[in-house]
Each structure stands twice: as structure tokens, then as C-alpha cells.
């Protein structure tokens, strides 16, 4: 704790991504005042826009502080009835876990489900990065010091936008020796690619094939160069150079709806890492310790009318995913969440920053110490269950083996890319976080924009199978022809994306889109 005048800065761990930066939150007599950049930390006080904006989220005008039942404020005790009703028929209940839950709380949820024989437990954190927990080596996690040692680094996606904290180390590493080779693989020109030795600009959505090829998977009967837009020899050469180098590193980030079959991208990376005995530095906002069931199974049960109640612990679901609203409309939903939305039963939930416990970060496990007082009324999983008279110890842990069928996945990719229409892709840019600092835009190639007849800055209508909205256009050469990119950081934009349930992980995929300007 650093005292300065009348205000106090409390040191904490930034909860808004899995990188684990430390920062100070300044309190004065009137509440949360701002962020303090503390020098004696692993991140040297440096923060990305999300870290700086963390106070805006703590003080968000929609922050839920009182339980709400069908739009009316209620007492916490009132909720006991709801829980009693629910627990009488455990087969009709589904429990889901979103982001912003500590490892201890995850175990408590599993414990609670086991006690009351609830079998349907799933994760509702649908970002593909949720699958990156397999790359966290608890004994020897990859860290920033691994960048300095490396001769060759392969980067999947735009790490500067996902975790700007890595930029200082990566740029310095690149420019300290001419021999250092930086390979960037992405479907649009990104910040990292400007510094790259080799930039493989793959055709939108086909990163999985590149990663599998690098991993040494045989891809017979596939016109590799035609599908990915990258010559086969180039990828093979990079794979050989990486395997034969003494020290190397793979850095991976995969945004929402950025690629088809992200689980195959990670599978290829696993193979490459195993073959070449090199570390992987996963960049994510959040991963679960326990691999819960796939939400696809619960969705099937909901469609068959077998589920009546849904209890969600965590930050964003179902608020962030309007595309599920039709399917969820028949259910009674109890949502322990941080922001207020719709007329469900809503229980104010504490943010990670306000709890004590353990969270997984890119560089291993880190602990939170609950020095930030929670917003009045916000409670954690233990406290919510305690009010219902449910005691848990939080020691359960289940790890599910993920079954990945490479052949099926490749078939699906081949099917997707046959459609020639304009596709909407997702990209991650940290300053669009939750729309607090900047509102999303639609990035478009000048040729596509010319065909529709729109200029930079025009506000256009966007419609997909799932929904429609309006966004301002930014015309840029960074984006390839035939694809438009947007930042799915608000529910309106996120709601545009289609999902498919055919694989074990519920995937949000690049979606066919209609764009027009009203006269």
C-alpha cells in the first residue's frame, strides 16, 4: 500500500487480461479516483489501455449492486426461494461459468453441482483463447525473458494489440541482432507485422492449415497454396528453421471469430512445440482451470426443452451474446454478473480485482489478495452460496480431455471458404475494450468499399443471419479483399456472429454479411 497525501494507492493485479500486470488503484474520500503506475513491478508500471481504464469499469454506471428480480430491486434473502425451487429438480438445471471467476470459485461451483447432482456444467467463455490453458506450464511457464533468449519467434495473430505489454520486449529483441527472425502469421496487416522478418498474410480464416503444416501434419489432397495464399515451401522452410534453431518461442493469440477452427490452430502449435521442444507463450484475457463441458451439449438440451433453469456465475453471459436470446427465452435465468442487463434474476457479482484467490495468467498462477473493497452489494461465489445455506470447500478439480478431429476440422474449413460472399471477421484491439474508450468500427478494403460506394467515416448498416447494427467505416489497405473486420467488444457487435456446435468447442465463426448505406 502506498500512501500519498489524502489518497491511498492499493497494489493489485490487473484483472482485464491474463498477462498479470500489477497496478495501483487510488482511493480518496470520495471513492475510486484513478490508476497509479507502480515502478517496482514486473511490468515496470506500464499498462495497456484496458489497465488504465480499469477504474472506469469498477465505477461503470451499469454496475450491479443490488439483486434484481424481473427488473425490481430485491433483498438477497428473497433469492433463497428461487434457489430452493431450482434445486428440487437438478436434471432441469444447467450451471454455466463465465470469465472473472477465480480457481477456488470454479472448484466451489463444481462442489455445489456435485452435492445437488447437477450434471450440466459448461463454460460460457467462448473466446477461442479459453483453450490456451493447455500451454501454461506451471513448473516452467514461458515468460518475457524467453523472448530475449530466442533466435526465432513465431507469432500467431497480433500480439501488440492483444497484449501491448509485450511490445517493448519484442521490438527490442528484434532490433538487437540482425540474425533475429520474427515470423508473423495473420490474415490482415497488423502492428506486429511491421516489425516482422517474414509476414505470412494468410487468406482470412485459414491460419489452422498453416499451423498444422508447421506442426508436421500431412495434408494430402489439399491445394495448400490456393487455400491459404501462402506457398507450401515457405511454410516448410520456416518449420525447418524453427525446429533446427537452438532457442525459439511461439507466441499465440487468437481473437473471437478471427479464424475458422481455432482449436486446430492450437493443435498445430502443440505439435510444433512438441516436435521442436520449444516453449509457447499463450496470450489470453481469461482461461478456466477446469475444462468444463462444451456449451453445445447444454444448447441441445435447451432445444429439447429438458432444461428449465440456468445459473450463470461470471461477468458477461448472457448479456454479451444476444444471438442466444431466442433459445434462452424459455428459461428462468439466475445470473451472478457484474453489469445490469435485461429482466433476469440478477445477483451482484464481485470482480476478480475485489476477491482473494488464484487466477491463471500467461506466466503461471498468480494470487489476488482482496485489498480492493468490493462495490457495495457485490459478492463472490462462496458468499452467494452461503446465503442460500450451501457450504462448499472448493477443492474439486476436473480436467476434461479435449477431443480434436483434425480431418473433420479441415473438411469444415474447406466448406467455409467455398462461399465467395463478403465475410465479417473479428479482431482484437485493446483500446476498443468494452466500448469504454472507443466505439467499434468496420475495417474495409478500398476495393470492397468502392463497389458498395462508401467513404471512410460513413455509417453503414450491417446485417448477418444473427442480427444487425450500424457501424462507422474505416477504409484501409491493411484488410484483405473479400473480408471486413470489426472489434467484437460490445454486445451489439458480438451479436452479429454466427456459431457452430459441430466440434467439441462452441465456435463463433466469421459470418457472411450484407453491408449497405441508407440513401
Amino acid at each position: 500500500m502506498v500512501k500519498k497525501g489524502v489518497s491511498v494507492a492499493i497494489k493489485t493485479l490487473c484483472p482485464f487480461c491474463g498477462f498479470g500486470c500489477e497496478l495501483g488503484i487510488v482511493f480518496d474520500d470520495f471513492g475510486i479516483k484513478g490508476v497509479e503506475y507502480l515502478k517496482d513491478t514486473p511490468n515496470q508500471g506500464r499498462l495497456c489501455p484496458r489497465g488504465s481504464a480499469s477504474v472506469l469499469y469498477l465505477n461503470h454506471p451499469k454496475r450491479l449492486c443490488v439483486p434484481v428480480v424481473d427488473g425490481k430491486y430485491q433483498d438477497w434473502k428473497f433469492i433463497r426461494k428461487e434457489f430452493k425451487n431450482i434445486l428440487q429438480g437438478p436434471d432441469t438445471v444447467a450451471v454455466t461459468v463465465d470469465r472473472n471467476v477465480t480457481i477456488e470459485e470454479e472448484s466451489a461451483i463444481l462442489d455445489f453441482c456435485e452435492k445437488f447432482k447437477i450434471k450440466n456444467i459448461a463454460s460460457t467463455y467462448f473466446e477461442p483463447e479459453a483453450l490456451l490453458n493447455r500451454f501454461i506450464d506451471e513448473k516452467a511457464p514461458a515468460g518475457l525473458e524467453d523472448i530475449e533468449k530466442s533466435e526465432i519467434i513465431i507469432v500467431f495473430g497480433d500480439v501488440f494489440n492483444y497484449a501491448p505489454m509485450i511490445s517493448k520486449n519484442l521490438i527490442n529483441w528484434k532490433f538487437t541482432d540482425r540474425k533475429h527472425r520474427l515470423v508473423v502469421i495473420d490474415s490482415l496487416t497488423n502492428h506486429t507485422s511491421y516489425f516482422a522478418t517474414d509476414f505470412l498474410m494468410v487468406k482470412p480464416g485459414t491460419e489452422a492449415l498453416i499451423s498444422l503444416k508447421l506442426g508436421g501434419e500431412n495434408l494430402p489432397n489439399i491445394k495448400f497454396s490456393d487455400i491459404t495464399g501462402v506457398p507450401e515451401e515457405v511454410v516448410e522452410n520456416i518449420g525447418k528453421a524453427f525446429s533446427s534453431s537452438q532457442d525459439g518461442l511461439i507466441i499465440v493469440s487468437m481473437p473471437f471469430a478471427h479464424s475458422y477452427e481455432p482449436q486446430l490452430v492450437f493443435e498445430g502449435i502443440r505439435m510444433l512445440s512438441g516436435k521442436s521442444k520449444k516453449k509457447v507463450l499463450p496470450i489470453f484475457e481469461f482461461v478456466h482451470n477446469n475444462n468444463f463441458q462444451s456449451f453445445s451439449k447444454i444448447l441441445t438440451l435447451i432445444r429439447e426443452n429438458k432444461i428449465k433453469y440456468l445459473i450463470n456465475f461470471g461477468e458477461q453471459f448472457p448479456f454479451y451474446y444476444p444471438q442466444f436470446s431466442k433459445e434462452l427465452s424459455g428459461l428462468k435465468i439466475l445470473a451472478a454478473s457484474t453489469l445490469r442487463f435485461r429482466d433476469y434474476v440478477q445477483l451482484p457479482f464481485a470482480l476478480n480485482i475485489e476477491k482473494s484467490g488464484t487466477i491463471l495468467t500467461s506466466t503461471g498462477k498468480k494470487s489476488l489478495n482482496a485489498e480492493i473493497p468490493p462495490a457495495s452489494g457485490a459478492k463472490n461465489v462462496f458468499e452467494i452460496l452461503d446465503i442460500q445455506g450451501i457450504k462448499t470447500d472448493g477443492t474439486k478439480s476436473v480436467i476434461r480431455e479435449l477431443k480434436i478431429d483434425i480431418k473433420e476440422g479441415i473438411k469444415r474449413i474447406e466448406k467455409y471458404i467455398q462461399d465467395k460472399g463478403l465475410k465479417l471477421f473479428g479482431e482484437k484491439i485493446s483500446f476498443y475494450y468494452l466500448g469504454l474508450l472507443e466505439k467499434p468500427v468496420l475495417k474495409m478494403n478500398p476495393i470492397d468499399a468502392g463497389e458498395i460506394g462508401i467513404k471512410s467515416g460513413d455509417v453503414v448498416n450491417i446485417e448477418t443471419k444473427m442480427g444487425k447494427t450500424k457501424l462507422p467505416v474505416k477504409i484501409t489497405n491493411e484488410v484483405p479483399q473479400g473480408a471486413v473486420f470489426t472489434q467484437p467488444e460490445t454486445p451489439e457487435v458480438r451479436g452479429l456472429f454466427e456459431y457452430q456446435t459441430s466440434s467439441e468447442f462452441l465456435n463463433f465463426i466469421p459470418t457472411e454479411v450484407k453491408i449497405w448505406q441508407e440513401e
Partner: protein
Amino acid sequence: MARRIVLDLDLCCGCRSCEAACKVAFKGESRIRHGDIESVAYLPLACKHCKEALCLSSCPVEAITRDEKTGLVIRSSFKCIGCKSCALACPFGVIDAPLVRHISQKCNLCRDREQGPRCVAACSSGALQFLEEEEIKKLEIGARMVSKDAFVRRR
């Protein structure tokens, strides 16, 4: 000795941490802005506290003054009438023309924070630095942008 914010374009990765830090600290008024020369460079635009400040001479109500000790160009929000003269006069375009609370915004190098400006502290790539004038002269900042050789600066 006066200290100033210096930008090393070679390092900037365009994450806009500086802008976010400023915006949060000054309640929605970002006093550092960004430029984007597409495919070439990203540049945070911060007040240079010019020796012959045009904003200072353009101000009709003397709301902008120079702090004699540090050489900072400072705007008083009490005196400012929001006429936008300074925004028009600034040759670097760093004073924000859209008026929040009907007064113009201007960087004061975070005078309220002992350790220096927040944008420099937040900068994720180390491109923004807070240096003494003598140190600035010694550095070849942004040499790569001019010479087109990535290694010039790191000889």
C-alpha cells in the same frame, strides 16, 4: 532543468495506452492524441511546450501562461472561455478542438503527479520518455524512420 516528453517513433506500437491513461486521469478529456500515417507510423501527439508558443499569444483572455520555473505552457480552466483560438493556432494540432465542458484542453505534463506524466508511465513500448533537454540532444530518436534501416539507432 526542464524535462519534456519525447517520442521515439521507432518503438511506438500504436496501442494508445498513453491516450487511455490521459483520458482516465482527466475525466474523459484526453490531452494527448494520436495520429496514424497508414502503414508507416503511429504517433501520439503531445504538447511540446514550445519556446515561442503560438497558443499562448493567440489566447484573448490570457488563460494560457508560461510557468517561469519549469517553462511549461499552462492553461487555466477558470479563465478559459472556450473560443478555440489556441486549437487553431497550435501548429502541431495537439490542443483538442471539440470542447469538453466548454473549455479547451491542454497538456500540463501531469503537474499533480510527482513521478511525471501518466502517458509516459503507461507507455507499453517505452516509446514515450520523459527526459532532460540535454539527454534529448544526445539521443538519435526516430532515426530509423528517416534512414529506413532498422539497426541505425541500435549501433
